[in-house]
C-alpha cells in the first residue's frame, strides 16, 4: 500500500503548525488587516490579555488562546495582521500557510468597518483559499460615530459567508460571533462563497493546471488556489506544499 494523505490525523498536522498540542474541538484562525482590532477580538473571545498595540508587525508569531462556547472547546489562533496573503513578507506567509495547510475549522477575517473596501481585498483572498470563512465587521462603534452605514445582510449575501458586526472593545456582537464560529466549524451554516472568475484564457490555464495537480495534492488542499499561485509565479507556495508534504510523510512513516 502506498502512502495516503488521509492516513494521518488532521490534529497531528496542526500541531506542527501550532507547535502546540490541540485538545479542543475546533481550531479557528483569526486573520485581518493591521489595525482592525484583531488582537482586541482575540482577547475579548479568549479572555487573555495579549498586548494590543499599534505598530507594524506586532503579531509576528501567532498567539494561541482557548475558550469554551456551547459545549465546545475552541482554540483560537491569532495570525499576523496582513493586507494580503500573497506572500510578500514572512508574516503573510505564516498567515497563508496556516489557513491553507493547517486546515482550521473556520477562519475569521476581522475587517475595519470604517474602511471596509480596503479590507475586502483580504476577505476575497481568504475566500479563494477556504470556504469556511466568517467576516467579523469590527469597529462598528467607530463606524457609527463616523456616520458610516453598512448594509450587513447585502454584504453577507454578496460574499456568501456570514458577516457579524462587532465592537470588540465593548463586547458588542461577540456572542453572535461565537455562535457563528461554532455553526460554521460544525458545517451547519450554508456557505456560498463568492468566486472570482478570471479572464477566459486564465480560467482555461487554471483548470488544466488544477487537473495536473489533482493527483499530487492531499484532498483538502484547494487546487484552484494553488494553480492560481503557480500561474502568478509565486514560488513560496511550493515551499509551503513541500513543507506540508514532508510533515505528512514523516508522520505516515512513523505511524506505519
Amino acid at each position, binding site marked *: 500500500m502506498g502512502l495516503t494523505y488521509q492516513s494521518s490525523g488532521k490534529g497531528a498536522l496542526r500541531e506542527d503548525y501550532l507547535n502546540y498540542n490541540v485538545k479542543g474541538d475546533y481550531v479557528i484562525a483569526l486573520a485581518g488587516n493591521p489595525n482592525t482590532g484583531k488582537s482586541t477580538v482575540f482577547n475579548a473571545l479568549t479572555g487573555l490579555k495579549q498586548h494590543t498595540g499599534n505598530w507594524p508587525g506586532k503579531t509576528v508569531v501567532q498567539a494561541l488562546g482557548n475558550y469554551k462556547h456551547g459545549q465546545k472547546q475552541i482554540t483560537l489562533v491569532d495570525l499576523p495582521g496582513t493586507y*494580503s496573503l500573497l506572500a510578500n513578507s514572512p508574516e503573510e506567509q505564516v498567515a497563508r500557510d496556516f489557513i491553507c495547510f493547517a486546515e482550521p475549522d473556520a477562519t475569521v477575517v476581522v475587517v475595519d468597518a470604517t*474602511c471596509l473596501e480596503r479590507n475586502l481585498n483580504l476577505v476575497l483572498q481568504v475566500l479563494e483559499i477556504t470556504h469556511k470563512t466568517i467576516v467579523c465587521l469590527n469597529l462598528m462603534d467607530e463606524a457609527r460615530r463616523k456616520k458610516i452605514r453598512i448594509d450587513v445582510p447585502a454584504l453577507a449575501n454578496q460574499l456568501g459567508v456570514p458577516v457579524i458586526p462587532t465592537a470588540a472593545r465593548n463586547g458588542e456582537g461577540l456572542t453572535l460571533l461565537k455562535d457563528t464560529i461554532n455553526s460554521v466549524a460544525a458545517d451547519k451554516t450554508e456557505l456560498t462563497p463568492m468566486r472570482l472568475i478570471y479572464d477566459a484564457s486564465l480560467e482555461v490555464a487554471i483548470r488544466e493546471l488544477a487537473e495536473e495537480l489533482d493527483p499530487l495534492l492531499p484532498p483538502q488542499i484547494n487546487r484552484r488556489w494553488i494553480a492560481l499561485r503557480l500561474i502568478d*509565479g509565486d514560488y513560496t507556495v511550493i515551499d509551503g506544499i513541500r513543507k506540508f508534504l514532508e510533515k505528512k510523510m514523516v508522520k505516515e512513516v512513523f505511524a506505519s
Partner: protein
Amino acid sequence: MNTMIGNDTLVSLGVGQRGVVTALATEGIGRRRMLDLGFIPGTIVESVRRSPAGDPTAYFIRGVMIALRSEESSKIFVNPV
C-alpha cells in the same frame, strides 16, 4: 480602463492635488504589493503631505493615509483630476 496613460506619476502630483491611477510600471511582488495597498487603476489618490526632505510623500487612498518613497510612487501612473 479606457483612460489614456499619460506621463504623469504620483510624484508629479502637488500637495492637495488628486489623480486617478491609470497604470503600474512594476511587476511581480512589487506590483502585487501596490495592488494590495489599493493602487488599482481607476482609484483616486490625493497627495496630502510631503516630508521636509521631499521624500517620502503621504497619499490618501481608499480611506487611509499611506507614505511612499519616490522609488515606488514614480512607478504609479496617474491622470490629474
